[in-house]
């Protein structure tokens, strides 16, 4: 239990997947203009992450890892070189399903997210979480917690960003820095403030 709490705190604050590893920047910068869409995308990413990370754990540990196919009678086979492509396939399938659900039940959110909803499939944060999960040798329960809390950390970052950009609506930014330039600087300053937690060992 203590272990799970520490994974949660670690992936939300200390090793925030966006502000410490800089994964998932593209949709973070593009969708953070409005609070509603930021919350929507944050929820979508959290949802996808909390499904795909455990799912990829199952796929990895029962199909891909060295010796994982022992249950089928092939203990000597190592398919882990396939993990990138298989993980992406799993993620893409889940995102497709999610897209259909949102389109059917939440059309305004669907319109607002636009092209970025299918692009969750190639959001680096999602693949990154699956790969970190393998690298850090999490077990199944840990991978569930890790996926959900990484998503929550990502959501926290994007809605904070949306709040700041709302506040900066009246800012007078130099011409060359408008939009993406200033967003990158804000992200950097945010990462600096998030270093509050760096160094905490849980």
């Amino acid at each position, binding site marked *: 239990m203590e272990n799970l709490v520490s994974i949660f705190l670690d992936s939300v604050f200390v090793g925030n997947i966006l502000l410490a590893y800089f994964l998932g920047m593209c949709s973070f910068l593009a969708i953070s203009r409005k609070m509603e869409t930021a919350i929507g995308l944050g929820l979508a990413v959290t949802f996808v992450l909390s499904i795909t990370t455990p799912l990829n754990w199952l796929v990895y540990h029962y199909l891909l890892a060295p010796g994982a196919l022992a249950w089928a009678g092939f203990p000597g086979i190592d398919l882990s070189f396939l993990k990138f492509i298989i993980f992406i396939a799993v993620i893409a399938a889940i995102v497709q399903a999610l897209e259909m659900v949102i389109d059917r039940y939440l059309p305004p959110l669907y319109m607002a997210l636009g092209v970025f909803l299918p692009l969750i499939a190639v959001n680096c944060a999602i693949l990154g979480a699956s790969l970190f999960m393998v690298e850090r040798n999490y077990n199944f329960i840990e991978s569930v917690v890790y996926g959900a809390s990484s998503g929550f950390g990502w959501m926290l970052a994007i809605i904070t960003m949306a709040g700041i950009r709302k506040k900066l609506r009246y800012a*007078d930014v130099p011409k060359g820095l408008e939009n993406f330039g*200033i967003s990158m600087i804000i992200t950097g300053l945010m990462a600096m403030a998030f270093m509050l937690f760096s160094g905490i060992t849980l």
Partner: protein
Amino acid sequence: MRSLKDFFESHREHFSEGGRFEKLHPFFDAVETLFFIPGIVTKTEPHVRDSLDLKRFMSLVIVALIPPLFFGIYNTGYQSNLASGLPVTFMAVSLKGLRIVLPIIIVSYAVGLAWETLFASIRKHSISEGFLVTGLLFPLTLPPTIPLWQVALGISFGVIFGKEIFGGTGRNFLNPALTGRAFLFFSYPMKMSGDAVWTVVSGVNNQAVDTFSGATPLVVSAVQGSADVIESLLVNAGFTLPKLFYGLYPGSIGGTSALMCLLGALLLIFTGIASYRIIFGGILGVLFAAFPGYIIGLIYGGSSIPMFALNPFYHLVMGGSAFGITYMATDPVSGPGMNISRWIYGFFIGALTVMIRIFNPAFPEGIMLAILFMNLFSPLLDHFAIQFRLKKRVPNV
């Protein structure tokens, strides 16, 4: 007064349109409005009538900063002379303090004002008095041994990336002085933390003392030891509660004395400049976060983290927490605007400061990053506070 007015009138033409120094108009404007109320009258609505304009607002913050500034100068000189074995009479100590602190403040003002003027001239906005506050707050948070070029670097980062690229005062989202300090803290940790940076040691008869370990109370209480002895450890090192309250101990230039910050806080609250909600929220946060550990320490005795069991009031008076909560957290630009979010914002600043002191071995002090961290969330707190208000409103009445 008349001659001063004539002086401004006779030089106005050079700075107005078509004049020789047209580009430097913001500078002229800033100096003139320091003495006189500007003659500009708004022609269209809305007409806001208030004697408290930005200039008076910021000047009051400067006045409130005088106690920590003077005490900081005295304390810096006192610690320096004490460590170097020089006499600690009032005059000697004050002069020594001035010699250490004044160059830091001058560099901070000069470099910051240069950037400010540059941006104001090119981007055609006026120079704001907010800078006078930033340029004084920043040196007060630094250790006295800081090299002057780092002061220049830090204030440059703070003014440019903390404020000016967003369009100047009132448009930034982080406290500029703390942005500069955090930048220095992560870039030159050797000069910004540790034991040796808090006291300037000058040589007696040109024999420089190499190192002087003037441990701050935060460092003393972070050492590993059993928890029930932490207070006696502090007292043995000379840090009793009253001494920490008065502030005569090594630390950052202006941040050591809780008493002086209290004076400043009273003035700021009385004049309505600082939000008392943020200040009280911060104090509550510190006490609330430190209290459980104290109780557990009292009942069960030892813990592996000594600071965990420290009396909550120590957390209030030692390190920079009093200074930060009084002057930095109450920054009206980077703080939230709704009353309820001010309480939450202050509370989390206090609580996070204590949490970082206890749980984060990387940083002995947490107030700087706690304030920056909550600066990020203040627009969000405001957003949800407004949403909450809108939900509660009865429709169509």
